[in-house]
């Protein structure tokens, strides 16, 4: 395990920094059901951190705790070295944590461009009258934000659908637009909830490439949930494995792969 608070260097030579986010003894209950049980782990700057586990392991719940959609009964969330007070989801987003959803949550009625632009709302500082009248600083600000957005649209190769209403797009492209919107916020931490769910092999490969490129190009710290073991192992630097709300493994893909508990959870084990 890693105990070097200065970070580490990955196999492919990328430098991983200090701890960005730390979950300390998180417990989340829904009535009598314990969705997450006393889990701790950290996410480091610049790394791709995966949370995996079988169905119902509590992965999505964990992501929702990080993004503020769920409030854990016990435990602390530390972000950039300070304990995070209880926050509502939009406040978490304003802190620089962007996310995508398992079932895609896009603004269906808006164009791709408008969708991605909503990711920049936090960067618009001019007041409402300047904006409405398109005066002075508002224009410069809009141009500046548009440039940032266009860069991301280019990067994710969705220029050809910029003006298309999102509702007309196929599933795979919608996922990519959602990623673009999250990226537009220039997040300190990007959360991806099953970015490859429901995709075919080719789309999965595309998405994997984009995730790696995003991490590489922008240095974005990424935490993702994924079902597909193969994809996760190729993609991530470190993996947390969950099963029935408990953490059963944490380490590099190789460490996790050879962990007996993890093998049991995935392949099943006879209790005799």
């Amino acid at each position, binding site marked *: 395990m890693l105990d070097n608070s200065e970070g580490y260097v990955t196999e492919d030579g990328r430098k991983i920094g200090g701890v960005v986010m730390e979950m300390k003894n998180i417990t989340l209950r829904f009535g009598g059901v314990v969705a997450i049980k006393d889990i701790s782990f950290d996410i480091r700057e610049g790394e791709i951190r995966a949370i995996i586990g079988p169905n119902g392991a509590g992965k999505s719940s964990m992501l929702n705790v990080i*993004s503020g*959609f769920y409030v854990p009964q016990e435990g602390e969330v530390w972000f950039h070295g300070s304990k995070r007070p209880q926050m*509502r*989801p*939009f*406040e978490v*987003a*304003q802190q620089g944590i*962007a*996310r*995508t*959803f398992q079932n895609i*949550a*896009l*603004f*269906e*009625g*808006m164009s791709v461009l*408008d969708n991605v*632009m*909503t*990711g920049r*709302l*936090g960067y*618009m500082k001019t007041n*409402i009258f300047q*904006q*409405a*009248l*398109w005066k002075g600083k*508002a224009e410069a600000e809009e141009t500046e934000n548009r440039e940032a957005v266009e860069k991301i649209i280019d990067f994710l190769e969705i220029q050809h659908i910029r003006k298309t209403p999102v509702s007309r797009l196929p599933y795979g492209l919608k996922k990519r637009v959602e990623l673009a*919107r*999250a990226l537009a*916020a220039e997040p300190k931490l990007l959360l991806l909830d099953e970015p490859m769910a429901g995709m075919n092999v080719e789309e999965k490969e595309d998405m994997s490439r984009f995730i790696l490129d995003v991490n590489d190009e922008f240095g974005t710290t990424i935490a993702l949930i994924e079902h597909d073991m193969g994809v996760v192992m190729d993609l991530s630097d470190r993996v947390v494995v969950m099963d029935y709300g408990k953490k059963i493994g944490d380490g590099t893909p190789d460490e996790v792969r050879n962990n007996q508990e993890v093998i049991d959870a995935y392949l099943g084990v006879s209790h005799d």
Partner: protein
Amino acid sequence: MPEQLVFAMEVILNGLMAGVLYALVALGFVLIYKASGIFNYAQGVMALFAAMTLVGIMNGQVPFAHLINATFGTHIHYFGWNVPALFAIILTMGVMVLLAWCVQRFVMRHLVGQEPIILFMATIGLAYFLEGVADLMWGSEIKKLDVGLPQGINLWLDETTFNIFDYGFFIDNLDIVATIIAALLVAALVAFSQYTKQGRAMRAVADDHQAALSVGISLNFIWVMVWSVAGFVALVAGIMWGTKSGVQFSLSLIALKALPVLMLGGFTSIPGAIVGGLIIGVGEKLFEFAIGPLVGGATENWFAYVLALIFLVFRPQGLFGEKIIERV
């Protein structure tokens, strides 16, 4: 020029003016609908409430006077002062913002992520609640509203047309003012929803609550804002209608006239609300003028609804509504 044609022109002009007033109410509906995905049934009652509050404040009426008098056996009805119109309008707007906050706090907040039909039902409840509160606060008698808008025949137009056609048109000054105000209102609202950060956030919230949260938009703030804007539009419509026909409870029924306007123009289109209003305004006046005498008159009562019905059959999304595309 033949006399009939000149008459028809006056009728059309009057129809356009009436249409603007319809459009003004319809606008309130479209705005809330576009901005929050809610069809706000209470829009008409909000216009009534705004107009009553405005009159009440201007006349220095004591709110809930009947309730207070019945409870404590007192006889207070008026504070004994009059508030100038402009100041009263600002105060009323404050009340509408407060109302928006209450709607958000006590209704909308509990319905995050619900189906549109649930939200719609909530607004029906709100309409009845608000009607009751308006009655309790200000009483149910018909009141005169005069905020100093020009009223009566426009002499300039009368004279000019008289010189040309030998027949002076009768156009109410109030209608002209209403037209100008409606145009300004639309321009302001379009600029707001298309070009401002808050407008963009508003459209985002209308589309998807979760997604809006995930990009850092506060639902609560946006909702208070949306309902405040709706309250503002209601106030403007309330002032116009209240000045025209007195502040009375039938004012909330003008919302019904807005429905055919919306069906014609489409629920999602601001230009649609305006064009729809104009078509209905002109249509019902012309119909009454041309066909009315043949069928015994009073066609204005039903013409708009029949027109809406025809539209529903042949073009359910309205003239400007978003096209309904069905994927097979």
